[in-house]
């Protein structure tokens, strides 16, 4: 009997947690279909007008373009650097190895807002870089640790005898790297790249200090829209973003598993 009671309590907590986590998302999506000009829940009527308005809003569309551009380029820059660093750290025992690893994972410990201000202050003092370049630099730094971590996690699980076997059969170092090691850790690299892309796309605190009037990323555009408007176009936009992020997250889960990317293995 006692066991039943604790199981019921556990089930209740579990359901409460799911409601707590998912209710806001459900409300956002539901609100986006409403007809009224203020966000109401439950929504009254049904219309797709706010989706049309969100897609026609110039600050959203410009922000979307910039965010996609910055996220894609930052991922493309950070991934090769991260993979190379992870392979070097994994393979060699050199002096300062731990220090290098800690240094490369450092941006994880530095809050986005601090990193953003640091880049802003330096760029202003040296008078270099446009807003787009500052954004690219900051986002690349911010997502580099994730690329290194996921690649390192995949390398650690790789059986070292496979590489030795390739060399034994006469493969050169370069051949081993491109035909054996990299394909074997590819899921880790891909997961890190997708996760980095999502992080960069979602980053607001860092971007706040790197943008200028004409160069505004989507999260920052949403924040400034919400400050002055209450219409559901922002919930329509959020619903579309939820769908996109959900798709990418499922992709990570299929490639490496979310636990490996977010888990505490640093």
């Amino acid at each position, binding site marked *: 009997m006692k066991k039943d009671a604790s199981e019921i309590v556990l089930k209740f907590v579990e359901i409460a947690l799911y409601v707590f986590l998912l209710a806001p998302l459900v409300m956002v999506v539901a609100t986006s279909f409403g007809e009224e000009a203020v966000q109401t829940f439950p929504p009254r009527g049904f219309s797709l007008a706010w989706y049309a308005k969100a897609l026609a809003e110039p600050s959203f569309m410009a922000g979307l373009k910039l965010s996609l551009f910055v996220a894609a380029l930052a991922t493309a820059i950070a991934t090769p650097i991260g993979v190379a660093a992870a392979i070097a750290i994994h393979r060699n025992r050199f002096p300062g190895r731990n220090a290098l690893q800690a240094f490369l994972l450092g941006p994880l410990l530095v809050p986005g807002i601090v990193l953003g*201000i640091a880049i802003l202050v330096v760029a202003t003092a040296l008078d270099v870089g446009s807003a787009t370049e500052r954004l690219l630099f900051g986002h690349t730094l911010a997502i580099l640790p994730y690329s290194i971590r996921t690649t390192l996690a995949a390398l650690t699980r790789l059986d070292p005898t496979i590489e030795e076997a390739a060399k034994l059969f006469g493969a050169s170092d370069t051949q081993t790297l491109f035909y054996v090691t990299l394909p074997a850790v590819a899921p880790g690299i891909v997961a890190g790249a997708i996760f980095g892309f999502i992080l960069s796309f979602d980053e607001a605190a860092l971007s706040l200090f790197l943008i200028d009037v004409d160069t505004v990323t989507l999260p920052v555009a949403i924040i400034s829209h919400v400050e002055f408007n209450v219409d559901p176009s922002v919930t329509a936009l959020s619903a579309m973003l939820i769908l996109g992020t959900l798709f990418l997250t499922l992709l990570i889960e299929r490639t490496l598993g979310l636990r490996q990317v977010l888990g505490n293995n640093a």
Partner: protein
Amino acid sequence: MYTDFAVVMGLVHVLLPYAVLTILASLDKLDPNLPEAAKTLGASGFTVLRDVLFPLALPGVVAAGTIVFSLAMSSYVTPALMGSPKSKVVTTVVYQQFVVVFNWHFGAVLVAILLATSLLIILLTLSAVSRMRTAQ
């Protein structure tokens, strides 16, 4: 909405997954035979949780607390959107100093304090966790 409590609820919502995944990672590393053994020896589900799983997962719990604390302390978006304009957190003040009133010196001092505090907390917890791991 627009109260300190709303900010706390918002942060719990945003940061809960970080806590769950961190604690999950440390539970994954446990020997699954341990809770089984406790049950065989007659422990109830709650006793297993309290006396076996929780102590063993404690380093993970502490790590999760640290991660969530430092992320919460340095978050900007949630307090900016959900908090009242009257009650300020350090990140919104920093934003004001840098972007609105252009008092970079004062803003930089606040940022330095924010960074030093979160690094200090991380270092203290890391040493506490490693002491816990050696004690086991």
